[in-house]
């Protein structure tokens, strides 16, 4: 029988609410919920309300795959926003491809991927790592020490950095990895101090950053003597690390709470109103917040939530978001993003000191960079 058109659209939010990753992912989920709220208040999509279905990925990659399946097959959601770690995305990817469903992934990552069923709203390497290196080069930093957590993103990032360095006359003095969750950095700090680099390129993840910066500081290293450029430390983490320990060090992102756009002013205000004045906004949160808007826009344009139609409608969508103009790239379903370097301020916020001027076209396989030719085989 012709069932009455449902008056709501279910969307899945799949992040780690427990386990080690909860520290980061909960805030992204919050930002996505905010977007859902705002859209609903503005009348919803295609005249229907969005109903978020929240699941916990529990910091466990197979659980992400299981919950993704559940959202698609059981709840029949129109799309899913979720994931943080590359591993969780890799685990979900086959599920979305198998069931031809859509995932919106909001975090900067190592690139070398472009699934037809994933939209990437965070930066790929040429929108964060490479601009970071460009900045260091401009600053005249020549000797680099690489410090990272032992997983895909840092290893890939460092490969790119090494290729870049080779092509730009920079020198890599050391490359060190520590297990995720590592907290004892005295040996590593000793190695770094002995090597005397101009700058440390830091791809450590999560809690390790706290230990690293605390122990670096007490070893007497300061941002003046040896700056540490981080690509996984955002406003959210700064409080936990302790402003004293990290103020003055540079970071590379596409968005800061201080980014001056009208959309951001509204975003920060709405976020603080909903979750508390003490809360800060950060790049991945903004990317997650954007994802919901980008999807909604695509649905409006397609006139349906049907996946293939949405995919077809999405390219060329361009919105003014807190970080500025964001456009979905038709080639690889990533987004155009502006790269920004910021310096951590004593108040815990990040002040932009450099930007790429305009949104950079995403290039997950670094095809446009001759020096990166050997990096991505396929």
């Amino acid at each position, binding site marked *: 029988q012709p069932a009455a058109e449902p008056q709501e659209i279910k969307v899945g939010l799949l992040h780690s609410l427990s386990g080690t990753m909860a*520290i980061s992912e909960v*805030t992204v989920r919050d930002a996505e919920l905010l977007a859902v709220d705002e859209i609903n208040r503005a009348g919803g999509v295609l005249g229907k309300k969005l109903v978020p279905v929240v699941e916990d990925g529990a910091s466990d990659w197979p659980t992400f795959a299981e919950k993704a399946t559940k959202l698609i097959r059981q709840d029949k959601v129109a799309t899913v926003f979720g994931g943080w770690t590359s591993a969780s995305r890799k685990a979900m990817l086959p599920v979305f491809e198998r069931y031809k469903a859509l995932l919106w992934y909001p975090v900067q990552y190592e690139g070398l991927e472009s699934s037809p069923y994933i939209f990437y709203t965070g930066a790929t390497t040429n929108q964060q790592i490479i601009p970071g290196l460009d900045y260091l080069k401009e600053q005249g930093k020549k000797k680099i020490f690489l410090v990272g957590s032992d997983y895909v993103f840092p290893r890939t990032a460092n490969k790119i950095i090494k290729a870049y360095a080779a092509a730009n006359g920079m020198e890599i003095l050391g490359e060190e990895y520590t297990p995720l969750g590592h907290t004892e950095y005295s040996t590593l700090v000793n190695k770094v101090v*002995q090597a005397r680099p101009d700058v440390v390129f830091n791809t450590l993840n999560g*809690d390790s950053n706290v230990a690293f910066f*605390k122990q670096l500081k*007490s070893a007497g290293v300061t941002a003046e003597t040896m700056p540490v450029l981080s690509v996984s430390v955002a406003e959210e983490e700064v409080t936990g690390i302790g402003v004293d320990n990290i103020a003055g060090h540079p970071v590379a992102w596409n968005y800061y709470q201080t980014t001056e756009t009208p959309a951001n002013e509204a975003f920060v205000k709405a976020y603080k109103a909903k979750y508390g004045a003490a809360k800060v906004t950060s790049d991945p949160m903004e990317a997650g917040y954007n994802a919901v808007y980008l999807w909604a826009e695509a649905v409006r344009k397609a006139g349906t939530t049907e996946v293939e139609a949405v995919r077809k409608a999405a390219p060329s969508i361009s919105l003014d978001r807190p970080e500025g103009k964001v456009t979905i790239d038709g080639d690889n379903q990533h987004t155009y993003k502006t790269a920004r370097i910021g310096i951590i301020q004593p108040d815990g916020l990040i002040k932009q000191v450099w930007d790429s001027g305009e949104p950079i076209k995403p290039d997950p396989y670094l095809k446009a960079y001759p020096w990166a030719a050997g990096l991505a085989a396929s």
Partner: protein
Amino acid sequence: MTAVVNQLPIGLSIGAVLLLVALGLTFTFGQMGVINMAHGEFIMAGAYTAFLIGDLVLALPAAFLVAGIMGLILERAAVRHFYGRPLDTLLLTWGVSLVLQQLARDLFGAPNVQVPAPSWLAGGVGILPYNRLFIMALAVAGVVAVWLYLNRTALGRRTQAVVQNRRLAATSGIDTGRVDMQTFFIGSGLAGVAGVALTLIGPVGPGLGTYYIVDAFLVVVAGGLGQLRGAVLAAAGLGLLNSYAEFWSDASLAKVIVFAVIIAFLQVRPQGMFVLRSRVLT
């Protein structure tokens, strides 16, 4: 070369951290036969106490109390049903640890919090920052206190009597229930103290305990279950091993090397560094 020399004090300071986190564990393990997997979360409780109080020195006794009382509650509510079944307590307390982690996440939020280090700990001598020296001093003080308690006080003797023969202790006039509570209180309290110290060098968040618990157990095992001097030597040994292994390879490999060395070591000394021999068959 200086780098190699530097690793020596670094190794010792790593050892001090290990000792501090393992001390309470050795205590409850050695004195009660309880393998407390929630130890890590008592450490976390200590760290959060420091966060709430905001002053490191005041936080030390407060954290001892807070973690100790949590231990007391755990002991009365659950652990006491499990005496004589150490492997069961391991699982039980693990369940408790999961709940405590989630509780911390809900109470203090998922992100890390920051405990400001006192200004008098800024700076250092040679390669060792003052905060590392502070931790080393705290570890030494902890060991001395535990040793005195066990060997120089009537309470300590009573504690030993209960672990060695519970039923006999009861029929010798010892209030075993009270001794259990005291022991668990002290062991958990020591975890709280360790937690305060760790705020100086690491993250303060819901996951804090999980980062240290496996290493702490390795110290306990290598030292000989519940053996104070064993724990001291094992912590120092593992600290040095860690520091040099990481220096010459990397942090990941160092962990694997440490494990291999421990297995090899147990081939030579199966019951750990020091063994309490007894004639009783098991």
